[in-house]
Every structure is written in C-alpha cells, then in structure tokens.
C-alpha cells in the first residue's frame, strides 16, 4: 500500500461516512489507526463534543489511553458505559449503589441488557450520548455479543453519529454462547476498509510471510503447511498424553522439548489455565503465570471469608486454604497440625514447637475474627510470618490482590476488591515471558511464542479452533514454536511425519 493510498484510507476513516467497518488481521495496526482517527477527528469537532472509544477490556482501554495521550477521546469499556447507565437507576431497579456485578447485582451480562432497556425506555439519554460523541469507535467488534451490539446501535442511531467498528472475524474467540455478532457477514454487507499492511512484522519478513499464509490457510479451511517452515518457525513432536481440561499434566517429553525452546523471552500459550499453571510449575525460572484480569479465585475466597466472619476456626482454615491454593510447600501434616492447635477455646500449641510462628497469627484471628483481621494475617503470612519452611507464593496475582485490601468499617469489600483488580490491570503491561492461556494473550504481542499442546483434542478442525489457532500464531514477532503430540496431532497443522505415527521422534527444522 502506497503512502497515498494509506492516507486516503485514513481520511476515509476520519471522514463523514455514518458507518465504516475496519477489518484487519492481527498485527495490521488496528489500534494504531483507531488512535490516529481519534487524533484527526478530535480537533474538527465543536466544543464539548468528543470521540468515544469503546473497548471490551480495561487493558485495551489503558493501552489505547497510553498511546493517545492528550485526551482526544473519551475511553470506556462497554461495561463501564453500561454500568454508568444502570447506576443512575440503581434505586428504582432495586440494585445496590455502587453496583456489585461480582455478586450478580447485576451480573455482567445482565448489566448490558439493563442498559439496553434503559436506553430503549429513555431514548433521550442515548440522544445526549450520541450528540456528545458524534464519533464512536469500537475496538474488537467481533467480540461484541448481541446485547453489546444493541447498546452500540442504540447510541449510534439516536443522532447522526459516525460509527467506526474495528474487528477481525478470525479473532472472534470469545463467543462462549453463540450470541456474538457475525463480523464476517457485517463486513460483507457494510462499507468496509481492509487494512493490508502487517506492521507487526516489518522487521521480520519470514515471520510475516508465514503468518499471512497461515491466515489464508486457516480462513480457507486448510491446515497450516509446516512441511517446510521458515527458520522463524520450529516444529517438534513429542510422545505422551495431553492433560485433561482441569489437569496440570506432566508429559515429560513435552516439558523437556518446551524447556529447550524457552531461551530468552518466550511466552507459552495454552488452551486451559491448568495447563499453563502445570507447565509453569515444571519449568521454574521461565517467567510467571499470567492470569490476566481474572480475579474470580480471589473473589470466591474473599466471599467465604466474609461469610465466616466471627468463626475463628473457619477463618484459620481459609487462611491455610489460600496458602495451599496459591502457594507451594503447604503439606498435609502441617495443615492437620494447624487444625489441631486451633480449638473453639483458643490456640493451644502444646508440644508442637515448630508451629509457634503460625500459631501467633492464629491467636490474632481468635481475638478478632473479622475480615479486616484476616486480611492483616494474610499480609503477615506474605511477609514471612508463617514460619513454614519452603512455602512460597505461586499465584501472586491472586494472593497479593487480596493482601492489598485495607477495608474501612463501612466498605463493601467485594467492590473494593474489584476496584483493586481494575487498578492492577490498568498498570499492568504485557509480560515478556511466562505462561498464559490464548484468550488472555489476545491483543498482546510477544517476541517469541511456544504452543506446547498442538493436539487434535484441543484444536479440532472447526471454526472456533481455527480462530484460536490464528490468535495464537499471530502473537510472536520473531519466533514461533509448535509442539505437537505424536499420538494426537491437530488437523490444523500439516507437518512432516504426521501420517507416520509409531514412535515419536523429535524433529527440529531449524
């Protein structure tokens, strides 16, 4: 694409057309174009009017915010927009204020539905929004479900609005219940701009060619051809079992092959959280486990703590449970000993001298069995006050999130946790190495990526698997490693020896 053509495209995006879809594969600069469009449009708007940029995640919002510097646009997640509307009517709707979506008040999906209803019953609000934001940009539109789509439409239809929807059908991997918009057919029926310059690989020609060809193959329903891969792509086969959905797994060959790949900054992408976590435990020193914005485990535990307020023994149990879930080195013996010394009358150490440090923490909980005290005890544990040899944190994202909470008497701790999680996500930058699931990696880019479980059970020959595969392979800039289980290779990859079967050998095409 020449400069002139690119400029013409950009002018069109910033131009007066009421609706424009911007379709582009991963790494083709969608976010960049969105930032540029906001920068171009903002100075042309009348005073008091701004560009509205809607994202799905706080992470995306912050990334955009970071690049846009200077307030050319108002940035919000679609949920935040919906929450703003619902909170206005929280009293008539019988909802708490502030809202508490983590306890279903309302649930996240209900939030959007309620917001849509409010706009339908009070179209003046949509009118105000649309006039205030004559230009609305939406990121990752393929991830919108039906009600999010409706919300955007209600705003856009309320007044003459320039709507710019950025998306890519092949990256629609969040369609859990089949209600996502069909961005593919939207592209077919609405004015669309296709971005054609793969910026992500401007310094890596071989990788660019590989990803472009792989996308073509996946979109056409063909397998990716790995029979003669470029040097930036390695393919290894390993013998052993791919772990089940909830299992951490211990396929020795896979781990050793993966270990050989993990030089420098490489991110390992898996299908299940348990897989990422399992590999991270077996491969220490290769980066952390990144769970993204999810803080569901912390919330569940916190809810149990709130429930158990006043019950000393249960609170101690939950403290031990936190150390067990999110740390390494808590043994059954230890757990039993803690249970033994904590009686309904208090803490009685008896002859178990080794447990004295931990018993001090228990005593504090006995004298004040509250949520605040529990959180204080958790902080003491993290500061080394537990006295348990060899115990260390594995899931820092969850345990430190809880430890940061310092509620005052009137605070809703659940909402506090949510705020804390959001604040954390806001400052989080993309990791350079480590372990995470493909869904969390969406929108991020890495130097190198390894896919350890390229199995038929996880990547079937269907559209969701193709989309997931595309998201995974389009992340790295420089290097991509495929690790294929010999017994169950995915049909999405065509590698040498696939049909061979028998004893797997490690083939490296480097």
């Amino acid at each position, binding site marked *: 694409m020449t400069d002139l053509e690119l400029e013409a495209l950009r002018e069109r995006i*910033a131009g007066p057309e009421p609706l424009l879809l911007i379709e582009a594969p991963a790494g083709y600069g969608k976010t960049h174009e969105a930032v540029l469009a906001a920068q171009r449009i903002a100075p042309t708007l009348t005073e008091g009017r701004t560009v509205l940029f809607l994202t799905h995640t706080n992470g995306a919002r912050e990334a955009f915010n970071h690049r846009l510097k200077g307030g050319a646009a108002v940035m919000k997640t679609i949920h935040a927009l919906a929450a*703003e509307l619902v909170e*206005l009517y929280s009293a008539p709707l019988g909802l708490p204020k502030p809202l508490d979506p983590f306890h279903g008040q309302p649930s996240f999906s209900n939030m959007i539905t309620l917001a849509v209803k409010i706009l339908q019953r*009070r179209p003046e609000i949509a009118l*105000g929004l649309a006039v205030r934001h004559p230009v609305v940009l939406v990121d990752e539109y393929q991830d919108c479900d039906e009600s999010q789509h409706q919300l955007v439409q209600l705003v856009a239809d309320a007044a003459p609005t320039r709507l710019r929807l950025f998306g890519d059908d092949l990256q629609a991997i969040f369609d859990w219940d089949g209600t996502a918009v069909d961005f593919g057919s939207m592209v077919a029926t609405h004015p669309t701009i296709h971005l054609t310059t793969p910026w992500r690989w401007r310094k890596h020609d071989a990788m660019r060619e590989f990803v472009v060809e792989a996308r073509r193959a996946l979109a056409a329903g063909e397998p990716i051809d790995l029979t003669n891969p470029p040097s930036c792509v390695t393919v290894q086969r390993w013998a052993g079992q791919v772990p089940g959905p909830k299992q951490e797994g211990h396929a020795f060959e896979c781990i050793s092959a993966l270990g050989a790949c993990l030089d420098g900054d490489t991110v390992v992408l898996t299908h299940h959280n348990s897989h990422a976590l399992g590999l991270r435990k077996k491969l220490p020193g290769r980066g952390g486990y990144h769970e993204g914005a999810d803080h569901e485990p912390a919330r569940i535990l916190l809810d149990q703590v709130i429930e158990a307020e006043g019950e000393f023994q249960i609170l101690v149990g939950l403290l031990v449970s936190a150390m067990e879930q999110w740390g390494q080195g808590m043994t059954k013996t230890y757990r039993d000993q803690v249970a033994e010394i904590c009686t309904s009358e208090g803490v009685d150490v008896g002859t178990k001298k080794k447990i004295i440090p931990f018993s001090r923490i228990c005593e504090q909980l006995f004298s004040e069995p509250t949520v605040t005290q529990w959180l204080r005890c958790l902080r003491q544990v993290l500061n080394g006050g537990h006295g348990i040899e060899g115990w260390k944190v594995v899931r820092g994202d969850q345990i430190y999130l809880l430890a940061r909470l310092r509620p005052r008497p009137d605070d809703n701790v659940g909402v506090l946790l949510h705020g804390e999680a959001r604040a954390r996500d806001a400052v989080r930058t993309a990791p350079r190495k480590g372990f995470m699931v493909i869904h969390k990696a969406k929108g991020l880019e890495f130097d190198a990526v390894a896919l350890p479980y390229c199995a038929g059970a996880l990547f079937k020959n269907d559209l969701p698997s193709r989309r997931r595969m595309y998201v995974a392979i389009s992340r790295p800039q420089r290097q991509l490693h495929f690790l294929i289980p010999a017994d169950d290779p995915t049909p999405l990859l065509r590698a040498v020896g696939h049909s061979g079967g028998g004893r797997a050998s490690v083939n490296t095409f480097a």
Partner: protein
Amino acid sequence: MGRNGLRAHCRRTGRAEADGGNRATGRSGQAGTLDTIRAKGWATAQPLLEHRFAVDPEDGDGLPAPGDTLDAVRRKVAGLPLEDLIRAFAVRHELPRLATGARRRTSRVQIRRVKIERYRGIEKLVWCPTPGLNCLIGPGDVGKSTVLDAIATVLSPAPSRVASEHDYLGGDVAKGFKIELLIGKLDEEVLSAWSAAPLWTWWGEKNKVQAEPDPDGEAVLCLRAQGTDDLEIAHVAIDPSQGEVPLSPSKRQKFGLSTMGSAGTAYRELRMSRGSLLSRNIGAEQLRGLITEAVQATREQFTPSKEVEGRVGELSAALRAIAPGTGDLDLAMLSPRGQNLLGMIGLFASSKEALVPLANAGLGTQQLALFTLARLLIAGSPLFVIDEIESGLEPFRQRDLIARIRGTIESDGQAFITTHSPAAVGEMAIEELHRLDPPSGGASCISALADGLETVRRSDPEALLCRVLAVVEGQTELGLLRPLLEREAEDIGTTLGALGVRLVDGSGQPKVFKVTNALIKANQRFGAFLDDEAEHKGKRAALGQLERVAFGTYSDARCLEDALSMQLAVEDLDRLIAIPASDGRDHSDARYHQVNDSFGAQSRKTLVELAADHGHGRCRELFREVANKRSWFKAPETSIVVGEFLRDHHSDIQIVRDAEHFWASLMSLIANEIPREFAG
C-alpha cells in the same frame, strides 16, 4: 537540548507555520485554511483554495463544497499532490462542523415544577408553571421576587456565589435551604452535557414525577441549588437513585436562562463590569487594551496644581531623609483598588449634545435598555426571568414590553415575570396569571387564575392585584358598602386601600357565582356580599359555609331597597330621596313624580304627605317597588350617597350592622397579615 526542549521547539515551529498560512503543511495547514474559511466565510475563502485545487469545468467550480458527497469530493481532488489532498479532506471534514455551528437551537427547555424549601421568606412552595408566559401577581411582600430569584439561582451560569444569611428562612443557616426545578422539553444541547443524563419521568397531567424510565412520560432533569450551613450554594442534579451529580456553570449555561436585572441593578448591568449584561453583549477583549491606553494617556495629562506639587515635594524630601535611595515622588492615576478597570466603561446615550450615562437615565429607559441587552443575548434561548416588569414604564410602554417578551419567547419558550401594574395585568391572558398568596400553615401557594375571573381582569385588573377581593351583588352594594367599610377601616386607623381590600361588582346573581367559583378554584380567600333573593338559596348557603369566604347579606330583607323600606322611618326615606347624587344631580323631582304616579296623581307629594292619605305601610311598600323598578340606587353615583347617608345618620340600623358583620369576617380572613395595632 533535551528531548523535551526539542519537542517544545517543534511545536513552536508548527504554530509559526500555521500562522504563516500558505507554507503550512499537514495538520497545521488545515488549521490555517479552516481558520480563514471560518473567519471569512466560504465564498471569500474560495480564491485561497482556487490556486490549490485543479478546477474541473464539468463539475461546478471544481472545489469541494458543503454538501458534496464523498465521491464528488474525491473526484474533485483526484490527481492532487498528497499535501493538497490532505487539505482538501480536512476542509471536507470541517463541513459537518460548519453545518452544526450554524444550527440554531430547535427546541427550548421548560420548567415543569418549582419546589422551594426554607428560601428567604418562603418556608415551602410547590408550583407547576405553565408553558409560555407566567406572570406572578399577589399582594406585596409575599415572595414573588423570591420565586424568580430561586429559579435564577438554580439555573444561573455564573460561578456559585456565596449565600447570605438572609437567603435562609429566618436567618437559620444551620437548617439550609433547597430550591429544586424539574426541567422538561430537553433538547440535545442540554442532554449532551451529560455522558449519562440523569433523567426522571414526568407525568404532566398528574403533576407526578417518578424514577423509573417510561417512554410514555416526559423525560425531565431534576436540578437543585442547596444552601449549605457554611453559606455556600451547591448546584447539583439529582439522579433517579437520589444521587447528587455536580452541576457545573457550563452545564447550567446550556439551559439558556436569561435574567434581566431590575432597574435597580442598571448601575452594574449597563457598564462593563464582570458578567454584566453589557459585557456579555460586547465582550471585554476589544476594550481591555483601549482602556489601558486611555488610562495611560490620562496619566500623562494629569498635572496637579503648584500647591499640590509643593506638598508632594515636601513628602519626597521627608521620605528621602529616612530612605536615601528613593527617587522623586509624583502623583499619578491608579486603577481603583480591587476593581476592574473595564467597569469604568458604560453605555451612554447622546441627548441634546451631551452624553448621559444610561444608568442615570429615567427608570423606564433603564428598564428598556436592560431588556434590549438581555433579549439580544438570548436569541434562541429558552428561559427569561424579569422582576417587576413595569418599573419606570408608562402603561403603553409596559404593554409594548410585554408584547416584545412574547415575541422573544415565541410559542415554545417560557418566561417568568412579576408585576404590580394593572396595565400589565390587563395585557395578560387570564391563564398567564398566577397568584402567590401569603402562606397558610407554613406552605405558600401559587394558584393559576381560572376563566371566571376574566371579566374581573377586563373590568378591574387592579382587583386581581389586591390582598383580598370582596365580590358584591352589584353597583348598589358597591356604593352602599364602600363608605360603610371605609369608616370601619378608619376606626382602626387605616384605609381599605392600605389593607388591600377591594370591592368588585359581581353583576348580580347568578353571574356573580361565576366569579366566586373561579376564586374558589384559584384557591383564593375572598368576601362576598349578596342579596337574599328567592332564587339561588343553595348556592349562597354553600358560599356561607366555606371557611375561606367572608359571606355577608341583608338580614330579614331581600335587597337594599327592601331593607331601607323596612328599617327607615318614612321621614328618613324622604330625606334619602332628596339627597343629590354624588355627581351633584338632584333626582328628587323625578323620584316624587314616579311615586305619585303610582297613586295615579300628577302632584309632587312627599312620602310623609302621602303617608297621611295612604298610611305608612303602603308608602314604604311603594318606596321599595318604585326605587327597585326605576333603579334609583343602581348607579355608583346614586348608591354611594345611600352609604354615606346611613353612615352619617343611621349607624344603628340593621343594614349598617350587616355591613359591620361583613367587615368583621373580611378582617378575620386577613387577620394574621395586618399589623397588630390595626387588628385590635
């Protein structure tokens, strides 16, 4: 040079280029061209664009123009170098903005409900004004201006001011005050002030507001100004969950309130003081440099007398004695401390070769000048508030001003005015009049006047401005009661006028009931003095039952003539017949002829003489019949003499006692509003 320094440098260069205009490229180039277009208009900017864009004779002038489709613009600029292409598109992007910039506001907001609590003299008031003109009337000191000020306080775009303790009811600052407006007919300009407008639902016909959104009801905003206990006025919007959203001056500005200061504030409004009507009309930028120059010039011309100079010289020497480094002292002009120099500039009008500051002109001229300035500011803005519209204006200019206000608010705006002028009331439609009465039980009340009062408005507009209206049967009672009631007022050291009691001709039964019903509907207390006729007994009885009505009638007589014939001796009736009317005309001859005619005689015998022949009873009967039939006392000039006659000579008869009774009940209606020494 560090990175920041470099960036700053680049930015400066960019701006310099933009100012240079032609050489500018990229974004700064857009700004240059667009500024020109904006400043000079599309037509004059064309030559500037012409040498940039190829002209295609097939396609108009070949330039991108407002309203061009994307394709047309693209065709027009095909083949241009990139730089020009960018500019062409930038111009096109500006089109929506040019279009919206010229757009006038299409609709106007309206106040649906006013709620006041503990503000100044008003403890509690809820009022639903009507669309269009709302003219507040009512006796003095009931808080008409307070209502207007309350509205202006909520919507005033001026920065939040400090409250005075007099803004709090009874000066009780700790309890705060609250003014709440429900604003409907919201236009997009107002709605877009919020990213999520906190809208309530209003049901106009039920005067009810609800939190749940409902597309069948009207969307309204609930705005509040609250006086806090630390004398601040907080402006907030209340969301449907009772949360408070701050209401910034820029948001308040969107409601387009325009107040016209009363003539008393002309001193401030007609000069360039900060935020005044004049400065909002003219803009300070143009004058700021000029005034500084003017002051400088005057400073140079300023030459004190020799005597003063000598004294300054002494000061100079004295100061140098203790501060040797000080230079020579001199006198020069300073701007007044703590004041805006611009405030020295005001509007003048030339009159007979002299310049007169408008602020020193007659009250009426001041009022009209204020109105003109306010009106120019509000072109297209919806809400207009004017206190005491009549001040300084003759009736004909009042009427003209009202007509102009109507023109300004057009069919869909809303204006709030107060008046004490009958001429202004006469100019209003009855549904535009709203009466504010003194509070009863803590709550003040503003009532719309009902149709039945239209006749009163037309015949006696002043009556609607009085404290309490006394509707009487007809001209007979008007004349009879006025002297009698005036004497009662005199007895307590005042007059009917000072008490605000006004007698109104009810034009007989049943017409009078139209007026009384309208007064009841308008929630008014009033007096009614009616004949005790055979008909309409039920209606009179119902009136007599009402708590807020002072009811009076003739005891044991149907009408005045009936009562006179029964209560006065025949000699006194003769005397009454002989009194000339208040216009000096003597009707006695005509009246005696009419009486004698009834006996078939042509003589002019007095009643006493006739009584000797026909008996006293027959004579009295005849008096009643003839006086009634021939309307002896049914004109103001003839009935008033009856009242005066009874007042002066027969203060012990029943008619007078009936009048005294009526007076007592009238006074009990307004007992708590009149000074104690009068009430005694």
